[in-house]
């Protein structure tokens, strides 16, 4: 699964950034993953356990915040949350110009370390 690719990218970013900031031990990593993304938290955790072997990550806790899908109808400006099944038609005006405000993100939010 592509979570392995995603996680190795995350770890590369962290290694590089930790080096620049003189950090040798990371204690916590915080990710934000939208529910309308194709990254499964459980698979990310699995990949993390498999790939984050070196000392830098030895004591690191992986924290994953999931974000619900949240949309805006650009026809009537109504905001709406996830529905029983995926629907990108406005529940009010049947508008089809829907913008996703949240739920698609895949971010490294921050990390903590010494």
């Amino acid at each position, binding site marked *: 699964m592509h979570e392995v690719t995603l996680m190795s990218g995350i770890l590369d970013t962290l290694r590089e950034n930790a080096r620049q900031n003189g950090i040798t031990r990371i204690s916590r990593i915080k990710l934000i993953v939208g529910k309308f993304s194709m*990254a499964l938290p459980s698979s990310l955790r699995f990949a993390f356990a498999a790939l984050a072997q070196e000392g830098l990550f030895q004591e690191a806790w992986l924290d994953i915040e999931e974000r619900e899908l949240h949309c805006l109808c650009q026809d009537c400006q109504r905001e709406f949350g996830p529905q029983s099944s995926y629907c990108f038609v406005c529940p009010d005006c049947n508008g089809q110009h829907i913008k996703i405000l949240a739920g698609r993100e895949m971010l490294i939010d921050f990390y903590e370390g010494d």
Partner: protein
Amino acid sequence: MKQINLESKILGSNELLARKNRHLFEQLGILVLNLMSSPGAGKTTLLERTIEKLNGRLKLGVIEGDLYTDQDARRIEQKGVQVIQINTEGTCHLDAAMIGQAFADLQEYGQLDLLFIENVGNLVCPAEFDLGEDYKVVVLSTAEGNDKPLKYPLIFYQSRAVVLNKIDLLPYTDFSLERFLQDLENINPTAQTFMLSGRTGQGLAEWTGWLLEEVNRKKQGTAREP
């Protein structure tokens, strides 16, 4: 202890390379389609039939993503269209870096009207990787069941066109066309929908008609630019 805020996109480097590809395709005025489906839905067959039907009217190129083999690439080559094979060696998707390299390997890439990228057979992973294409196109076959848009909403949401293939098999399956179109209408109300058969050729003319239109649109867009 320090807290360091990154707020960096996990696929940020892929996005950067995808933007580079898109810019190049834009400059050259090439329409680029990223074909995605589960294994065996009929992507390569659709390409073969498309090449035959267009019959030289467009200059085509194909990038074939395949886990390990070059079978699909050879099928395209036999149709007289230039093709570059990418073996992903087990990786379940193509990424923008692979496409940038493969594109540069195509002979006369500057002369192309239309470039097809056949992604690795998978409805999940390819959806997250922007390749720099104009449109994603998802191919579903009637043998897979009508519930796929609900189960894999992202790929259907992102696709500009949805091809329902193996329409010749419809009478032998429990595929509900009505449910399928209804679900699609909710997930992606503006998608172009094509129902066709790579076996009998039914519905193929609508598909190639759309391709010709979009290639023209792309060229005019490029011509308008300073």
